[in-house]
């Protein structure tokens, strides 16, 4: 079940319920293709979150099924992944949505004088 413009879900935040790990993986892959270990290291630097390897592979499989990432030819025993065009579009939509919520939250804090 791949996400794309064909199925009429373009513009919808498909990552809303995908989980934090999936979003962090997409953000990491937006900087270039990476394999599992490189992803864990990059996400640790980027967000200060250490993804467990079981969580990582679960999220990679889910994102691949959705067509948001794709595997590249294996290097030795490692399988690098890269973000696809629908993946980049989905990440953009999700980050826009997060930004809107974040801005609203900041405004309410400001107005409430908290």
């Amino acid at each position, binding site marked *: 079940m791949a996400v794309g413009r064909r199925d009429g879900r373009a513009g919808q935040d498909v990552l809303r319920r995908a989980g934090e790990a999936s979003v962090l993986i997409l953000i990491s892959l937006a900087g270039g293709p990476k*394999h*599992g*270990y490189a992803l*864990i290291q990059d996400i640790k630097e980027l967000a200060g979150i*250490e993804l*467990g*390897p*079981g*969580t990582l*592979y*679960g999220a990679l*499989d889910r994102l691949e099924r959705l067509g948001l990432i794709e595997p590249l030819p294996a290097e030795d*025993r*490692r*399988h690098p992944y890269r973000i696809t065009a629908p993946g980049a579009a989905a990440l953009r939509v999700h980050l826009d949505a997060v930004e809107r919520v974040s801005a609203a939250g900041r405004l309410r804090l400001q107005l409430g004088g908290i």
Partner: protein
Amino acid sequence: MDESRAARLVQAVLRCYPARWRRRHGHEAAELAALLIRDGTPAGSIAWSYLAGAAREWLTPRPGRRLSAVACALLAAACLLGVSGGLLASAGPARAASTSQARPRAHGRPGSPGPAPAPGRPQVIIRVAGHGRSR
């Protein structure tokens, strides 16, 4: 835990994944675990993460896997939990068991197997496919 024992633990946990997953990620997952252990991540936390991942992998419905297989896995897990709960309950204090045996029935009619309905309360009988039971 030394590296060889940690590697054996991870290998054992990786065997919990479905064969399809192991064919695809097995070697890479073992190598990733070795790298993380070398970086100082505790082997136990890596094993736990893979174990949780394996459980999710079995329980997530896939296009190629029938929903009944998932239901069977859930049922088996529930049965295991029930058996464990039953064993725990049976290992409770013996005093509680003897007290409940000595206590007479409060509302039981002589000769009747179960409690009688409260006075003034209508007895409802539900019949499903020829079987009747009292409420």
